[in-house]
């Protein structure tokens, strides 16, 4: 019997260990290779790359809820983008700000987009972040003899020009057999509408929350609100200037990633999400509850967006609200790639 050499034994043990470790490493490597897409995804979503900076013109509308949540919960930060917010009373105003060069990103409803797109095509829709078919509110004074929608005929009615509520008023009047010519129509900014109605300068206005409630409070029994669920399906979108899309498409993906996280949060924590919306709108929780029910908050791009924009452009042109009588190709004004990269499932727009 040869004497056993302990060092020899040890070295063979080490060899075995090395073999084992290398097999494990090889296995992990193979797994890594096999699952590399998922890993790549994870890497893409992580905010490891240097943070981007962007300013956002935010229209303070119920359908901007996802943007508000993403800001409040720092989802944009998590997605790797530092967002500077500029707040506006409506999507229409925030889109105007974008076009004026105040911010490269804005949130806006379909109507302002359809309206502005007639003269400018240097921006694109990157995703719809919400829709609702019960947003429009007609608030009227009873002391002006308005009890039913039919009573609106011949009355002084104001609204925000070229906005969703403008279109809603149009639809509402049509629904009740009237056109713009059957009323005394005037245009004001959102906050002015409330003041004018309370003061009695106008008999009614077409607007949405939180302004409707803001007017109804002082009016009390003297006020009446008309709604028409299902009449007009409004969509609200994230709009980006083309130069930003060209310069830094990554920032758009990151913004969409932040919004997608907000969407998940809204599903996960609806109460907290409603609180955030209430704060963002400076509205009462009860008002927000109804709004929440009527809103579909989802980051997506679908065919209905095209249909809506085209019809709305027809309306604008037909109503001579713009000097331009030619609608652009909306298919070209929708940027699909960013959302496709972040969440391809939600892209059902034919492209």
């Amino acid at each position, binding site marked *: 019997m040869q004497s056993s050499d302990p060092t020899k034994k040890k070295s063979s043990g080490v060899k075995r260990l090395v073999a084992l470790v290398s097999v494990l490493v090889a296995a992990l490597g193979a797994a890594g290779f096999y*699952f590399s897409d998922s890993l790549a995804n994870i890497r893409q979503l992580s905010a490891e790359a240097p943070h981007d900076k962007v300013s956002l013109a935010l229209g303070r509308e119920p359908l901007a809820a996802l943007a508000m949540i993403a800001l409040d919960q720092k989802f944009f930060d998590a997605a790797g983008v530092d967002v500077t917010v500029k707040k506006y009373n409506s999507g229409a105003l925030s889109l105007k700000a974008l076009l004026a060069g105040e911010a490269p990103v804005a949130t806006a409803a379909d109507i302002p987009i359809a309206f502005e797109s007639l003269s400018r095509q240097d921006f694109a829709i990157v995703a719809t972040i919400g829709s609702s078919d019960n947003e429009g509110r007609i608030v009227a004074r009873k002391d002006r003899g308005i009890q039913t929608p039919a009573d609106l005929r011949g009355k002084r009615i104001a609204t925000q020009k070229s906005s969703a509520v403008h279109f809603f008023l149009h639809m509402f009047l049509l629904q009740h057999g009237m056109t713009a010519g059957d009323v005394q129509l005037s245009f004001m900014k959102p906050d002015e509408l409330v003041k004018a109605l309370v003061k009695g300068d106008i008999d009614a206005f077409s607007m949405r929350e939180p302004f409707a409630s803001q007017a109804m409070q002082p009016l009390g029994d003297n006020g009446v609100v008309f709604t028409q669920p299902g009449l007009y399906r409004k969509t609200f979108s994230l709009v980006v200037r083309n130069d930003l899309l060209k310069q830094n498409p990554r920032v758009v993906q990151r913004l969409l990633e932040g919004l997608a996280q907000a969407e998940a949060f809204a599903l996960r924590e609806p109460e907290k999400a409603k609180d955030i919306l209430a704060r963002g709108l400076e509205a009462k929780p009860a008002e927000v509850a109804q709004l929440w029910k009527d809103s579909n908050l989802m980051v997506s791009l679908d065919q209905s967006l095209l249909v809506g924009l085209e019809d709305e452009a027809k309306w604008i042109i037909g109503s001579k609200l713009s000097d331009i009588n030619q609608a652009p190709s909306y298919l070209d004004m929708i940027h699909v790639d960013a959302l496709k990269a972040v969440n391809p499932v939600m892209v059902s727009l034919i492209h």
Partner: protein
Amino acid sequence: MNIRKKLYLNAVLPLALVASIGVVLYMTGRYVSDVTAQERVAADLVKGVFELTTVADEYLLNHSERAQRQWGMKHQSLGQLLSELRSKEQVEEAILARVRSEHQGIRTTFSELTANYEKAAKNQQRQATLAQKQAEVPAVISTGKKVVPNPALQEVVAEQDQAKREAATLRELDTRLVNQLLSKSQAMVSGGLQLARINQNKVTQTERNAALAIFGFVLLTGLGISATSLLINRSVVRPIGQVKQGTEIVAKGNIDYRLGIRTKDEIGDLARTFDQMLDNLKQTTASRDELNRANEELKNSTSALIQSEKMASIGQMVAGVAHEINTPLAYVRSNVEIVKDQMDQTKRMIDAYEELAQALTSGADEKSLGEKFNRVNAMAAEFRESNTVEEVKDLLARGLSGLDQIRELVLNLKNFSRLDRERVTGFNLNEGLDNVLQLAKPVLKSKVKVVKEYGEIPFIACSPSQINQVFLNIITNAAQAIDEDKGGTILIKTARTGDNVQIIIRDNGRGIPPEVLPKIFDPFYTTKKVGEGTGLGLSISRKIIEEHGGAIQAQSAIGKGSIFTITLPSAGAVVELRKRA
């Protein structure tokens, strides 16, 4: 955990692997079929929405009542489907909620659309009626001599204008509503597509997860097997190595070594038993050492005993020798005394002669001369008569022979103990036997007749005193076995057998009982009275013979006698013999 359990675990782990992979595959299969079912539902949803849109398109084209009814049916069945759909996933539920709300919204829009169409139809009818009226009503009426435009016609025209305006509004609303309908349909289709895609992704993801899970399981189990193997290696193979090493160390003689393995398995038990065994062994070794010491002491005392036995036999021999010497000495002495007495007579005669010679020389008287002369003659005659000279001669001759005997004895004694302990190269065994027989005479006495049959044997290399001691012992025993009254014979035979020399000493004494025979070479075994025999004679003899490379054996028959056969090697001794010769 003991080794059995470990090995068992090692055997069971792969089984667990296969089982868990099976479970994962089964679960995956189930999940995939679940998801596939959901996907089918999503497809049903898309199909339903598509059909709804198709019917809506038909309605928009021809406004048929059938299409309107079909739309209502389809909408309802879609509603049914939507109300039945449920998802655990929040995202899917959110999409479903959106589709449901669009589904509700589209109903509103469609109702508005149909209502609007009915209004438009009525409006058309009204316009037709008005047109007819306009045609019927004369444009002018004459009121006497004046022809004026018919106010009734004006009224109709105004009514027609209003109807036309109304129609325009209805048309515009129709356009809006159609687009709303379309937009909502699209939104519903989107929802359905999204659900379908999510489910598709889920299937893909699930398959991927399953692959990952299987991979993970394989990896984990592989790790587990490796770990248990390592564990077994650590706790089984290595301790076995330690045990092996330990046994080797102990085998080399280090019984103070302990394994010290304290594991709670079979090897631990083995090691504990091994250590216990070593403890015992150590104790045994200690007692063995003690035994060795005792044995050493015994050996020492035995050699002392052997020495004393030798002394005793020498003493015995000396007693015999003294007797042997005494006998001749006695008669040598008495002869010498007789001779001495004779010498007185001789002296007296010599004196008488001297007197005569003096008287002769001094001239004494004849008478006294005569007297003296007669006396001398008488003396001489007496001397001759008494045969004194012959007698003295004889006495002296016998004295001489006695002295010779004594000289021979002394020589034997000298030979017997010649070069004690020293080995000589050429020793004549026959001579040795003769020597011993001489010395053994007192024991042999007259009762024993010794018959010698010496053969031609070579001188051997040996220690003569020791070999003589052996012969003396055996011859003494033989003599002692022979009864005083009966007498007996001791036959001493030497012969060469091949390379050996054989010495046979046979007696016809009382013999040795068979039960005693095996014991006679044992030390201290004796059948003799206390003080008479030590029982060491044969034992020492065997020792001496064996030391010389030979053998000694005994045969015996009761009443017939015993034969002791000694064999001694002679090889190498022949050359010596020739040299001496």
